[in-house]
């Protein structure tokens, strides 16, 4: 037979490959065309730079080796890696083997995919046997991954994970055909090796076993056909299934390295990220809403976006705490994606803030903005006032009486245009006061003042940073009571703004910080988040108690946080004494106050539970 004419059985593979390539490439082109103008320019410019090489390296590291998954969950990482990298090796090394056997590079690609069918001579040289056995072992490597994937579908606890993601029908076809590909290949190669003796050590042995029971010759062609069909089905199903993540992730890596940015309006970069989700399930484990029985995690949101059935119930039921984004091995910007969807969902909502007035503006170098929540935790407010007084800082308490909200809660709910009006009103006041420092007590406000307000020449600081500065400049003195404290990183200050060390630096001077397992980037969420619009209060309590109970295990003297919302949420649990960092500092200041001594004694008695 003429080896260069495609045998009929290779047709499924050929059709599948062609279909796959056409669909994926057109999808890539469409995505690229859907980028904003400036992003397209970034890509063009980036193509000829080192960023391209970096992207290739990243693709190997993440798309094939799945380093990020390994870091979080080694077993899961091995499973993904054995499938991805293993298959990659099969293709590449298989191709090299065929090149070696042919003695040239000119042969159709299906020759190497179905190598053992087309090249039936027993490998006599050492190199030939080496290749054959190597291919066998790579196939075993992949099969181990297939076995693990099969296991995970039925029992995710084997991987130390709580749950697995649910499947749609397109996904099912792809999944089942994927599971069949490698066992079928193994079967086909073993049958062929049993008849022609052209396999490696493993396929040869299995082949011999099979030959003893069956007349192998008539099974050869069907088994290779089955293998080809499996590949064909998989490749045709892939662009319509979750496995689109394989090419999408690589495309995403390139775009991200070129500097493409997520926009507020949904554009194709949003879709690139949505399709890059490998459904690994790591975000399910990271999400604290698991303990409250809520199933609206990122992976489900992304699935719903792909299937165009995202409901408000899922979309708005997320704390936006960032734990999923933190652990996502693909690096999808989950929080921003969710907010983009919220913008889309609330596009027609009306707001009108014409009632906002200019208000009085005080000239001052330092402005203090307490934030809405801080008014409900006056301990923080009064502590800051005391600290300012003792340090001799003249300041304007901007929202003491009447000030609109900073605008961030509106943004978290997707209403950016409405938030603009509040931002504008506050901005006028801040700029008008001639200040060079803006001290903020609430991390939610801090993030929007720092990132969105655009306040030139004004340093925006959270009060923990400001206090550290005061201590370092000697304007206030610390006093160490040696109490055991746990510091709770607020989501908005920690993961949201990368401020982990300054509060700890302050607290070290006032007590003993107890190191805990889930801190800094891995810190727990208190559950009070404003970003979750529709969670019932009882479920918030479950999340809050989960965090409190885990802190209680360390038996601290008190829990210290730097967010009024966290403080109020934890105080509701009534299990540990909760204080804000400003209160810890203010209680240990030297006895200078604007009232007489009775007041400072009274304040130090304050046992804020």
């Amino acid at each position, binding site marked *: 037979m003429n080896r260069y004419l495609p045998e009929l059985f290779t047709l499924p593979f050929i059709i599948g490959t062609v279909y796959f390539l056409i669909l994926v490439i057109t999808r890539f082109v469409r995505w690229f065309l859907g980028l904003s103008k400036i992003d397209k320019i970034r890509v063009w410019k980036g193509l000829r730079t080192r960023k391209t090489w970096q992207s290739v390296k990243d693709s190997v590291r993440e798309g094939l080796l799945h380093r990020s998954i390994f870091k979080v969950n080694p077993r899961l990482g091995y499973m993904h890696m054995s499938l991805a990298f293993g298959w990659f090796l099969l293709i590449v090394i298989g191709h090299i083997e065929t090149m070696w056997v042919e003695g040239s590079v000119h042969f159709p690609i299906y020759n190497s995919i179905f190598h053992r069918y087309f090249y039936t001579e027993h490998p006599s040289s050492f190199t030939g046997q080496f290749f054959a056995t190597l291919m066998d072992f790579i196939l075993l490597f992949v099969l181990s991954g297939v076995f693990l994937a099969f296991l995970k579908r039925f029992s995710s606890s084997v991987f130390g994970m709580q749950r697995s993601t649910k499947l749609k029908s397109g996904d099912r076809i792809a999944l089942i055909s994927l599971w069949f590909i490698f066992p079928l290949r193994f079967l086909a190669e073993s049958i062929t090796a049993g008849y022609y003796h052209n396999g490696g050590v493993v396929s040869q042995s299995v082949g011999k076993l099979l030959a003893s029971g069956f007349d192998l010759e008539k099974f050869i062609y069907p088994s290779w056909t089955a293998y080809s069909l499996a590949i064909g089905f998989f490749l045709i199903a892939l662009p319509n299934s979750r496995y689109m993540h394989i090419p999408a992730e690589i495309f995403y890596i390139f775009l991200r390295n070129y500097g493409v940015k997520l926009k507020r309006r949904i554009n194709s970069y949003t879709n690139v990220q949505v399709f890059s989700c490998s459904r690994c399930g790591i975000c399910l484990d990271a999400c604290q809403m698991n303990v409250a029985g809520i199933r609206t995690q990122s992976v489900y949101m992304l699935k719903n976006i792909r299937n165009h059935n995202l409901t*408000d*119930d899922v979309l*708005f039921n997320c704390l936006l705490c960032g734990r999923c984004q933190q652990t996502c091995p693909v690096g999808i910007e989950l929080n921003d994606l969710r907010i983009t969807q919220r913008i889309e969902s*609330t596009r*027609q*909502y*009306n*707001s*009108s*803030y014409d*009632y*906002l*007035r200019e208000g009085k503006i005080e000239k001052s170098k330092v402005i203090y903005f307490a934030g*809405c*929540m801080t*008014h*409900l935790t006056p301990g923080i407010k009064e502590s800051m006032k005391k600290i300012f007084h003792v340090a001799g800082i003249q300041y304007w308490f901007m929202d003491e009486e*009447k000030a*609109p*909200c900073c*605008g961030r*809660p*509106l943004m978290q*709910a997707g*209403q950016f245009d409405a938030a603009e009006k*509040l931002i504008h009103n506050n901005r006028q006041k801040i700029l008008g006061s001639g200040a060079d420092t803006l001290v903020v007590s609430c991390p939610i406000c801090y993030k929007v003042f720092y990132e969105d307000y655009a306040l030139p020449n004004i340093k925006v600081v959270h009060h923990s940073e400001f206090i550290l500065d005061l201590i370092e400049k000697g304007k206030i003195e610390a006093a160490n009571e040696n109490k055991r404290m746990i510091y709770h990183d607020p989501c908005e200050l920690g993961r949201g703004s990368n401020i982990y060390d300054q509060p700890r630096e302050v607290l070290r001077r006032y007590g003993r910080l107890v190191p805990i397992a889930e801190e800094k980037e891995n810190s727990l969420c208190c559950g009070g988040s*404003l970003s979750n*619009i*529709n*969670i*019932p*209060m009882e479920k918030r309590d479950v999340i809050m108690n989960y965090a409190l109970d885990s802190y209680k295990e360390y038996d601290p003297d008190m829990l210290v946080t730097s967010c009024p*919302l966290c403080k*109020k949420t934890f105080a509701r649990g009534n299990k540990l004494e909760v204080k804000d960092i400003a209160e810890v500092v203010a209680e240990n200041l030297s006895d200078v106050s604007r009232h007489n001594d009775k007041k400072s004694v009274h304040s130090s008695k304050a046992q804020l539970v």
Partner: protein
Amino acid sequence: MIDFGYKIAETRTIDYEQFDGRLLEFVLENERSFVKCLSCGGCTATCSAGNLIDFNIRKINLFLRRGSLEELSKEIDKCMLCGKCVLVCPRDINIRNVVMLIKKGIVKFNNEQISS
């Protein structure tokens, strides 16, 4: 007939028979905790917007209950979604979600009216 400009004076009586319950039903389907409201006024007292303008979240909840939709749509736009009301409510009502649902319901019913 000469038009003297007189109109029949309208009383402010709430005629419960004219009750339009669509928005209330829509809100209750998605935020059941709303039924527990006892109109204590804690929410209005702490409201950021209520501090700046005549915006009364307790009254809005009441309008919703009585089906007074026109007053509702004008007033609801003023909420800044800051969340202080939720933090003080003694009945643990998720008032912020009620506001979002009212906004969503207004859009929904307006669209229905336009398309019908």
